[in-house]
């Protein structure tokens, strides 16, 4: 268990310290007094567990390949950019463009997220990324989605805002989006179909949400009380007729 005090430290030095600690076999690292440092966990491999105290800066866990990051507060933009494997748990809100081109691993957020979350997520059978958001999401949720799973919960029933913004799943051609409660068809991109989840879907949801609830000490039965909608691309080639050959 290693503690690094990040107070006043430039990101390059901080990340260098983390990388060399992991290279020396450190498995548990706590970063104290983090205040907006970019690129924490960027390109990191292995299976270390890193706890961040304070607000980490943009591009948290970009290209990350294995470790687990626990953020005890809010986080900023571009989290899990093209992330390959590993897990990020955020005990707060997070910003825009999360999980851009994400290829694998898990992103759990307790609070709200901004625009363009889950943009261009990918997936293969064995490697599939997951993002679960406890609060609400902004516009363009799941834009260009090509694979993986996005789950949006809207757990704060007192929040008067809609659970998701406009252009939901626009350009989607793979993967699946699950939204707790009802989905307004008018908010969806033209490429998206709204379905009732079947038995398999509910099993999938229970599996992913079980892990999520453990991270945040929530009761899965409370979450599952309310129904879900499943969003799928209605065509593998939404733009197949756009061109004259």
């Amino acid at each position, binding site marked *: 268990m290693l503690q690094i005090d990040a107070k006043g430290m430039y990101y390059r030095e901080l990340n260098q310290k983390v990388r060399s600690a992991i290279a020396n076999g450190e498995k548990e690292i706590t970063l104290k007094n983090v205040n907006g440092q970019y690129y924490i966990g960027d*390109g990191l491999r292995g299976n270390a567990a890193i706890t961040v105290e304070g607000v980490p800066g943009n*591009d948290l866990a970009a290209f990350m390949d294995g470790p687990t990051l626990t953020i005890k507060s809010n986080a900023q933009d571009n989290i899990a950019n093209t992330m390959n494997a590993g897990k990020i748990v955020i005990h707060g809100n997070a910003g825009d463009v999360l999980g851009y081109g994400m290829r694998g691993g898990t992103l759990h957020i307790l609070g709200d997220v901004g625009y363009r979350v889950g943009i261009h997520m990918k997936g293969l059978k064995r490697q599939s990324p997951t993002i679960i958001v406890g609060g609400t999401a902004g516009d363009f949720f799941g834009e260009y989605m*090509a694979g993986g799973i996005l789950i949006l919960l809207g757990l704060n029933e007192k929040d008067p805002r809609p659970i998701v913004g406009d252009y939901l799943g626009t350009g989607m051609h793979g993967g699946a989006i699950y939204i707790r409660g009802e989905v307004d068809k008018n908010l969806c991109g033209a490429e998206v179909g709204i379905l009732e989840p079947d038995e398999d879907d509910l099993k999938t949801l229970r599996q992913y949400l079980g892990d999520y609830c453990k991270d945040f000490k929530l009761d899965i039965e409370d979450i599952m009380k309310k129904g879900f909608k499943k969003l799928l691309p209605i065509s*593998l*080639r939404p733009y197949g*007729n756009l061109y*004259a050959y």
Partner: protein
Amino acid sequence: MFKSLAPPEYLATIDQVKCIRCKRCIQNCGWSVYSWGGDKVLIDTSKCVKCLRCYHYCPEEAIQILDNPVKFKNNAYWGYNNIRNLKRQAETGGIPLTGMGSDLPYPILFDNLLIDACQVTNPSIDPLREPMELRTYLGKKPASVEFEKGKDGKLKLKTKMPPQIKINLPLIFSPMSYGSISLNAQKVLAIAAKECGILMNTGEGGLHEDLLPYRDSIIVQVASGRFGVNPDYLNAGVAVEIKIGQGAKPGIGGHLPGEKIPLEVARTRMIPVGTDAISPAPQHDIYSIEDLKQLIYAIKEATDYKPVSVKIAAVHNVAAIASGIVRAGADIIYLDGFRGGTGAAPSIIRDHLGIPIEHAIAAVDDRLRQEGIRNEASIIAAGGIRSSADAAKAIALGADAVAIATAALTTMGCTICGKCYTGNCSWGITTQRPELTARLDPEIFAERLINLVHAWEHELKEILGALGINAVDSLRGNRERLRGVGLDTQTLDILGVKPAGR
């Protein structure tokens, strides 16, 4: 449904007397122009694109591909392509696609620039028998260097040099992805790049494991679709390129049609088989120079500070954008002019957006010099480099090196027919159909590409020799050694070139 009102562009014809019914044309055509009619070859000429595969493989020279004499009445204003596109759009409601660079008769500045030579008052150099240096280093250069005395008393460099990529001549291969071109075509580029001591670029389609032995000759690309990008990929090559734009389609994204996404390509890109692979027009994490800087350093952090290149299309405000890119920390700026090729672009975009590479090089080089940051990044110029003369002119205008793609593909059989987007390339280049890609033997065709690079290398040395300079560094940005012919004063001013006779 009635027949298309756009008449075929070409007439594929077979001399029935010469034809020996060997059916090789049927086998070779990727477009299904030919079929067997029982006693003779039948022809569906509307499918012909004049790629000339059948012509080359006909043992009797019985095949001719003619321009269709009845296509439309000649009209200097309403050209064949204008009318054909109108007919096609009326029939489909779609956007006509095209491949390769624009073929419209815009002025070609390279053809209005001439290179100087030595006579009497300064000696030219014989490059065959005297040393001639084409070696080029890509990357940031320090503004000044300091030396110190080592323990052995010898002087050594004190300044810490930023990472440099050494290439044997100022020429690399432009990015072309696995998906847009076949794996065999990528292998040809990789083998030739390694052999010639230059570089190829993966484009945005990931790195197939078969290319790993060539990793020291590879730039890997990150673009808006983020296809195939993971930490192994970022660290696989000698540099990472962020693709913002492409000369053939500035401001619009990539679109690899589902026809070119079989299992293997889908696996590398991590998307469903047969779906269209979409690279969004913007990278949604880059809306500003500050955002670009963020991605550049995200990549540098993930790669222990490998050089990062940023590729942009040459557009009106290219000089200011390039300045921002350098200030954002890029080691290399890759400029792609509007004549640059593409695997697929709407023809309306390809033919009408962007600016020529010649203007862009001059404007960017000027701007970076004025701001005192020209040393901070190397400039690679691309977008229609047809010959070593174009390369030499681009370097004299201010580029550090040039990149070629169309010229390289022609060594593999490409005839610039411009139908790359269909996935039917009979030469096995821009297709994923296994029976077509098998035609492109990487070893054999790499030999031809290596020949081309060596030929250009010799020509560049001859040009330098005639100029009386023995290193390509002395040509770089040396616009005094260029003269314009038939160019107006303003164009000459932008290019920083005097008119011939001055």
